[in-house]
């Protein structure tokens, strides 16, 4: 569904991605694992069109989308739940959700999608008129996921969805991710919680200083000695 081929990205002189190639098959969960600063967020943003890669190709559903700006990639159905949630704190929960459906592909059905999202997150239904910045971390993550779903994506890239959340809420987030996968969505999962994400994922890539160093099924990587030592604490 999504193919990344030899993608390189620079911030000024600093190289964030070095010839990254990976394939994200349809209706599967693909995990990307790596230390802080390995380039996971850069990779997601380069695919989404927030950063412009210096070389390489991104293909989605057979179409070359390299360097497309994000308002076009999102409109193709590539959604993102960004690191740090990236909500609009001075806008209400409802406005945050509505804006998720501002892309042309989602605008027609926005009202119906909003009902679906509010049914999925009943807590948000109660807090529609509250400013997003006043919500708890867990609630904010629900808004971020709901806002992404409002755009009717076929593929969702999750960037550290459990970061900074209470353990009980982390369980909720992983349950939602499993549900979305069960609904037939294609997912990319970047997580500092390596064990949970490898357990969930069909396949995974290990990213180190901007390079893919390992690729296999989630189970393979869970059993890999190097991965265990580096990311699972032995």
């Amino acid at each position, binding site marked *: 569904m999504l193919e990344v081929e030899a993608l390189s990205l620079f911030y000024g002189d600093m190289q964030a991605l070095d010839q990254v190639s990976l394939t994200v098959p349809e209706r599967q969960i693909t995990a990307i694992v790596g230390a802080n600063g390995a380039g996971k967020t850069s990779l997601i943003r380069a695919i989404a069109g927030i950063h412009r890669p210096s070389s390489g190709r991104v293909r989605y559903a057979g179409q070359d989308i390299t360097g497309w700006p994000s308002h076009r990639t999102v409109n193709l159905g590539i959604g993102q739940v960004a690191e740090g949630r990236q*909500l609009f704190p001075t806008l209400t929960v409802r406005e945050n959700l509505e*804006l998720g459906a501002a892309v042309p592909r989602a605008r027609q059905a926005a009202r119906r999608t909003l009902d679906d999202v509010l049914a999925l997150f009943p807590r948000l239904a109660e807090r529609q008129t509250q400013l997003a910045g006043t919500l708890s971390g867990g609630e904010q993550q629900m808004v971020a996921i709901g806002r992404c779903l409002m755009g009717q994506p076929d593929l969702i890239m999750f960037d550290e969805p459990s970061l900074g959340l209470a353990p009980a809420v982390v369980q909720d987030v992983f349950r939602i991710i499993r549900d979305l996968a069960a609904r037939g969505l294609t997912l990319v999962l970047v997580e500092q919680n390596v064990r949970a994400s490898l357990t969930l994922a069909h396949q995974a890539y290990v990213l180190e200083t901007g390079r893919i160093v390992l690729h296999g099924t989630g189970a393979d990587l869970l059993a890999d000695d190097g991965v265990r030592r580096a990311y699972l604490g032995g």
Partner: protein
Amino acid sequence: MALDLTSFWLAISNGELMANTLVKGTLTGLVYGLMALGLSVIFGVVRVVNFAHGEMMVVGMYGAWLLAVHAGLDPLLAMPVMAALLFAGGYLLQRGLINRFVTRPEHVQFLLLVAVAMILANTALMLFGPDARTVQVDYAFDSILVGPLILDLIRIYAAGFAILLTLLLFAFFRFTLTGKAIRAAADNLLGAQVIGLDHQRLYALTFGIGAAAVGAGGCLMLLLIDATPMIASDFTILGFIIVILGGLGSLMGALVGGILIGVSEALAGTLIEPSMKSMVSFGLLILVLLIRPQGLFGRRG
């Protein structure tokens, strides 16, 4: 020049005079507010200070003057025309030029917009010369009496339309999807990109809206003062003072700041000397910067 304290006390103890001064200042201030609103909106969203703001107002004034002289159009009717033209101009300016400078250092943006201001002011000077241009409307000297207040009809119309346009802007930002998208882009640019909002288009729309507001303000201003190319930079500075008073990026702040400046100018004119009015405005600015640097309605940080 010595202050004449006797006339000062005479004026301040004259309730009717004071009330009329306050009302007149408020009405003028509402037009100032509309003018400054554009500056505030542009800064609040695009994070670029429009140093050509007063020049854009003067473009609106000359446009209204041309439409009055050649088409017999009342400046109030010229307003939608000039607002539309300035919207288009502002949109294209942002889309074609300023968007490339949004991530550049501030002094580079400053030079860019000063250059735009120079071009606009000198074009006005070339086309219209330095002479004052004024429009005579048939209600120019009508006024209505409300108790002790003498209200100039021309000022009431100008202020009324300023309020109407301000309310329209409020409604646009509050209730339309595009208005919400612009607020979202101002709130969190990365967040806007994440959900696929086209921020460059939103920036262009915002600059267009800001230019339209100041263009409409120029049409209203033509009812109150003469158009000359020289007032442009004065009004750019007046716009800054108002917006800094009210809080950069706050719509409500621009309106209240406009009224404050309108009233203080009128009071200075009545109590001290008309030529001292800008001194009072600057004094007020310094006071606010000292006591509440984020402005009356600005958020801290």
